[in-house]
């Protein structure tokens, strides 16, 4: 019976979502306070019902209720608890439920933290989020019900895809979804503002913290995915330009443009309609991401749906959301006037150029990802876009990006003088360039222009950010949290670029055949293969190798890469073993058994690869710190005290 309660709970959530998406918006149009005040309770009720459904599905996983088809397909008796809980979002139906749950959490959060906003706006924002929710609930109820039963129930289930049984990956989808779905808040604010025809700077101030939080979560989600690919797929790469990765990268690029554009709109009231367009774009790309990942257009570990109805539904939903919001934009944006005036050499221009760079990057990824799908859909042929295309595009794009990133934050709003900036920047520029180009000599005996320029760019970004910080501290100027957040995020970019430049150039990767007792040297480390032993795990059996690492004849570590076979499915799984370090990773993964006890093996030396993820973490932390800035909280307090005094007046 309990799973039926889950299903019923979803139906109730759907009914509430329909109310949430219709009543408040009519109320806003008629200026009817009663109808508008329906929005908050409806948001809360929707969350309770979706949350209940989610809890029931999780329970079915924990207690091994294999009469639920979805549980039987993704869990079994020996699956550890962690992977039973994460199994909920391990396949299509459950991941949709997670998406809907996160959307309802964001909706409640907006309802709770918007006391200081005008009621009309809140009603519209919540209603728009309700519409998105209706779309997803319909999809779930009609094409992908997670509570579907099978009869007779199997005694034991299949299992969660072994590749997904990894702690990093257990956290990857929730983080990614919090980010994706978080952009729906910015989207809802944008659509609400268009509906109301009131697009002022306060609109940007309200939606900015939401967007930054969503962006920070998305950053963490993508970084976790990249770390998982490195750790789990056994190839030792951190980014593959796989369409599925690109699907999460496109909303990130649009979101990054959006948080910068929101800054100009909030501070100076410029680029208003452009910012609205970006908010629509960022959320649309999140939906496109869902579409290409979930619809089965791309066959990969992520693509669950093979039912063509699902693909058609998502496509239709996509058309309604993107088409509808763009039509609204076309109709309303003419009324938006950007009043702020600025000089050509100003912070505004720098941020505009930033936006051009990020949108170009998103377009480059979009073309590389969608063109093969288009060609396939038209029946012209089967093609794929090779990795070098993306590599070339992003090395090109990073040049203006890094140059701007150093200089942009120095330039004053409204207008600045070139000589002032040149006086500050020239020295740093020369120092970065010289140090950057000299740095490769530490690793090799020659000039490496590409790596050198990458390092110079990273240094330039870090030094300009740090100089600005030091100057501000010396002048005893107030350091706001949003400023510190920005500095941290920009330093994160610098770490990220250093990591990429060093790893791509100086990694040593060897695929080789090793007999027990033999050793192999790479980058000054000796990898000695001591042998293979059968080792049982909770729900798998592994061939585990022992590899001793020696440096200058001294033992510095032992690696235990495994080849696992999981019970339910017969295919082997590679589990790499990595000796982690701030400046280098030593990586070993097993290939396959060859003759005479020998194994094929991957042995890698990966210098500074951790810096890539550390950089992402810095960026995300920067986002969180920026959001905690006083001005977002102060505003609330002022309004509340104002309202209180008004209430006191009324009472007296």
């Amino acid at each position, binding site marked *: 019976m309990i799973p039926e309660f889950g299903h019923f709970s979803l139906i109730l959530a759907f009914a509430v979502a329909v109310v949430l998406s219709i009543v408040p918006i009519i109320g806003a149009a008629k200026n009817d306070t009663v109808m508008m005040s329906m929005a908050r309770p409806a948001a809360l009720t929707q969350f309770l019902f979706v949350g209940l459904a989610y809890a029931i599905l999780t329970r079915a996983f924990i207690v091994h209720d294999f009469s639920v088809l979805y549980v039987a397909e993704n869990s079994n008796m020996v699956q550890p608890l962690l992977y039973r809980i994460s199994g909920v979002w391990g396949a299509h139906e459950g991941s949709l439920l997670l998406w809907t749950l996160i959307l309802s959490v964001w909706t409640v959060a907006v309802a709770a933290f918007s006391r200081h906003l005008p009621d009309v706006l809140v009603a519209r924002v919540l209603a728009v989020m309700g519409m998105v929710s209706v779309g997803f609930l319909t999809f779930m109820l009609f094409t992908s019900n997670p509570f579907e039963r099978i009869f007779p129930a199997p005694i034991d289930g299949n299992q969660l895809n072994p590749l997904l049984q990894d702690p990093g990956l257990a956290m990857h989808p929730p983080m990614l979804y919090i980010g994706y779905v978080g952009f729906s808040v910015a989207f809802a604010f944008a659509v609400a503002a268009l509906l109301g025809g009131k697009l002022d700077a306060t609109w940007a101030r309200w939606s900015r913290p939401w967007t930054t939080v969503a962006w920070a979560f998305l950053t963490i989600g993508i970084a976790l995915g990249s770390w998982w690919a490195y750790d789990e797929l056994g190839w030792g790469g951190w980014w593959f330009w796989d369409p599925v990765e690109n699907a999460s990268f496109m909303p990130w690029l649009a979101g990054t443009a959006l948080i910068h554009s929101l800054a100009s709109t909030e501070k100076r009231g410029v680029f208003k309609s452009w910012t609205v367009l970006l908010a629509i774009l960022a959320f649309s790309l999140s939906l496109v991401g869902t579409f290409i990942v979930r619809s089965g257009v791309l066959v990969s570990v992520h693509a669950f749906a093979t039912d063509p109805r699902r693909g058609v539904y998502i496509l239709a939903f996509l058309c309604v959301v993107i088409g509808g919001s763009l039509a609204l934009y076309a109709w309303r944006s003419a009324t938006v006037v950007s009043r702020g005036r600025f000089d050509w050499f100003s912070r505004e221009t720098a941020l505009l150029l930033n936006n051009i760079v990020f949108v170009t990057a998103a377009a480059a990824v979009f073309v590389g990802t969608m063109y093969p799908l288009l060609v396939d859909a038209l029946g012209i042929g089967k093609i794929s876009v090779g990795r070098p295309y993306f590599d070339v595009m992003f090395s090109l794009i990073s040049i203006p990006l890094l140059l701007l990133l150093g200089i942009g934050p120095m330039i004053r709003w409204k207008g600045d003088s070139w000589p002032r900036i040149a006086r500050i920047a020239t020295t740093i520029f020369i120092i970065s360039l010289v140090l950057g180009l000299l740095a490769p000599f530490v690793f090799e005996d020659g000039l490496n222009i590409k790596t050198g320029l990458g390092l110079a760019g990273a240094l330039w970004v870090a030094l300009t950010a740090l100089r600005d910080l030091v100057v501000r501290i010396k002048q005893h100027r107030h350091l706001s949290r949003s400023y510190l957040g920005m500095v941290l995020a920009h330093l994160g970019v610098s770490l990220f670029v250093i990591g990429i430049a060093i790893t791509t150039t100086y990694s040593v990767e060897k695929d080789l*055949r090793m007999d027990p007792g033999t050793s192999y040297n790479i980058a000054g480390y000796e990898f000695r293969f001591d042998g293979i032993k059968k080792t049982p795990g909770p729900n798998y059996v592994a061939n585990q190798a022992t590899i001793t690492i020696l440096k200058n004849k001294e033992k510095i570590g032992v690696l235990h890469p495994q080849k696992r076979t999981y019970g339910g499915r017969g*295919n082997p799984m590679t589990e790499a073993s990595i000796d982690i370090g701030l400046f280098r990773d030593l990586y070993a993964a097993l290939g396959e058994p060859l003759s005479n006890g020998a194994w094929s093996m991957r042995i890698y030396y990966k210098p500074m690869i951790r810096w890539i993820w550390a950089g992402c973490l810095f960026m995300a932390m920067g986002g969180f710190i920026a959001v905690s800035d006083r001005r977002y909280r102060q505003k609330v307090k002022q309004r509340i005290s104002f309202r209180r005094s008004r209430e006191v007046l009324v009472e007296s």
Partner: protein
Amino acid sequence: MRKRSQRKLLVVGVLIGVIIATALGLKAFNQNLLYFYSPSQVKAGEAPAHHSFRVGGMVVKGSVKRDTKDLGVRFVVTDNAATVKIKYTGILPDLFREGQGIVAMGRINPDGTFVAEQVLAKHDEKYMPPEVAAALKAGKKLKAEQRKNGTI
């Protein structure tokens, strides 16, 4: 007047930048388009001789032969109508198996052997790479036609 000309300069600069980026991007795009060919198409000589491409099909049972000294491996893929010999040096993916669908990326030698730089089997064993599924379907059709025309 000066301000206006400066602004013009900026706009022109950005435009030139975008044009250069687009041109370089298109060039990189064209150079890195990888077409997929089925074994039948390769046999018919449709695949490019001097450019990388992808080929895919089922790994023929009993065709996988390993070198005893290094990581070299040779195998044959088929779409049930034609076959292609593939040579690869390195570690095969976990899901590589005889009788499974795979996709290989590389170039074809004058002797007709395909030298793979990369061999892909999809993450989940339930699925067949879509290109391979389509190639197998086409191969089946081709074979049926050949039978009908009495060419086999």
